[in-house]
């Protein structure tokens, strides 16, 4: 029911479905972590996202808010930090931030580059309250 609502609002059916499935993976990970810290309540979640993760931060935020009820994250405040793509150049050895569709090294124009950040969705940090 709520899924229809979101699709209606954002008009991006497939993508919304995607962020819901990412949300399930995240909640699975959070449940696992909560079990490792018995007595703790998750009050803060920090995710770091980048343009090559295939996940839209805004849509993921919506999905988590809708799904977190009755889970270990029910009372958690979610923060998603968006980072740009950063690449390492194997020719000049510099690291640089670049647009996701142009990995040309801004320093030496080489295309012998590789992603070193902004290519994944990372669960960076949790805050737990021990009442």
């Amino acid at each position, binding site marked *: 029911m709520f899924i229809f609502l979101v699709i209606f609002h954002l008009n991006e059916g497939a993508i919304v479905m995607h962020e819901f499935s990412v949300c399930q*993976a995240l909640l699975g990970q959070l449940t696992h972590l909560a079990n490792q810290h018995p007595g703790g309540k998750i*009050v803060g979640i920090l995710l770091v996202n980048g343009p090559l993760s*295939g996940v839209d931060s805004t849509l993921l935020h919506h999905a988590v808010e809708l799904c977190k009820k009755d889970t270990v994250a029910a009372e958690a405040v979610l923060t998603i930090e968006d980072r740009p793509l950063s690449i390492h150049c194997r020719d000049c050895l510099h690291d640089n931030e670049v647009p996701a569709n142009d990995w*040309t090294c801004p320093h030496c124009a080489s295309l012998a580059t590789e992603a070193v950040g902004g290519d994944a969705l*990372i669960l960076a940090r949790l*805050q*737990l309250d021990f*009442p």
Partner: protein
Amino acid sequence: MCETCGCTPALSANTQTVEVLSAVFAANDRAAAHNRLHLGSHGVLAVNLMSSPGAGKTALLEAVIDTLGKKYRLGVIEGDLETENDAQRIRAKGIPAIQINTGSACHLDASLIHTAMHQLNLDTIDILFIENIGNLVCPAVYDLGQEANVILLSVTEGDDKPAKYPVMFRVADLLLVSKTDLLPYLDDFKVDRAENCLRKLANRAPIIPISVRSGQGMDDWLHWLEQRYQAFRKSCSQTNLPHDHHHP
């Protein structure tokens, strides 16, 4: 942040910060590693086919079956729901095909592939094709345990697709520019421009213009496939994996 004014309340004395730093897709990556072990121990080359809906994945598979079906034992995991009967089209040619019922899902993941894989007799398969869901974004970020990603870009789609969908095109091990028989009717698609966009993603994958209608590029594509298969089999025999994978 607090709801009313957006300030950040000071942490109470009994709040603990836990550094996690793990990928949200870590569970999928673990499942994919298991699949890879499984496929490797059976010497099965797994090829993940990705594209927009209708770029020609199933038609390409049919063409491969017609030309290589006698030389190699092929298998197909069908994840695409574009047409209900993709798996039936494959089975009609005498090739084992497992249809994954993804419902309205937008990507395949490693655990779906694992379930499908165990419905096949991998000892009777040399090359396993996975036809992914027609979508140019998220299928790319789910490792399935495949050995290679083959991405189809049809000439009806526009040559700037790699620039618009870097998430997908950066993972290509081979780019097939499909339906080239239609190029005479489409003056705005230039293979060079598609190649340029791909290179700008620091991706040096080979690009083969191909058409199942005219047969253009089929030899090059089949040659690429056979080479990957030979190289894979060689690496399998060198590592000599014992087959004792077990399920987590």
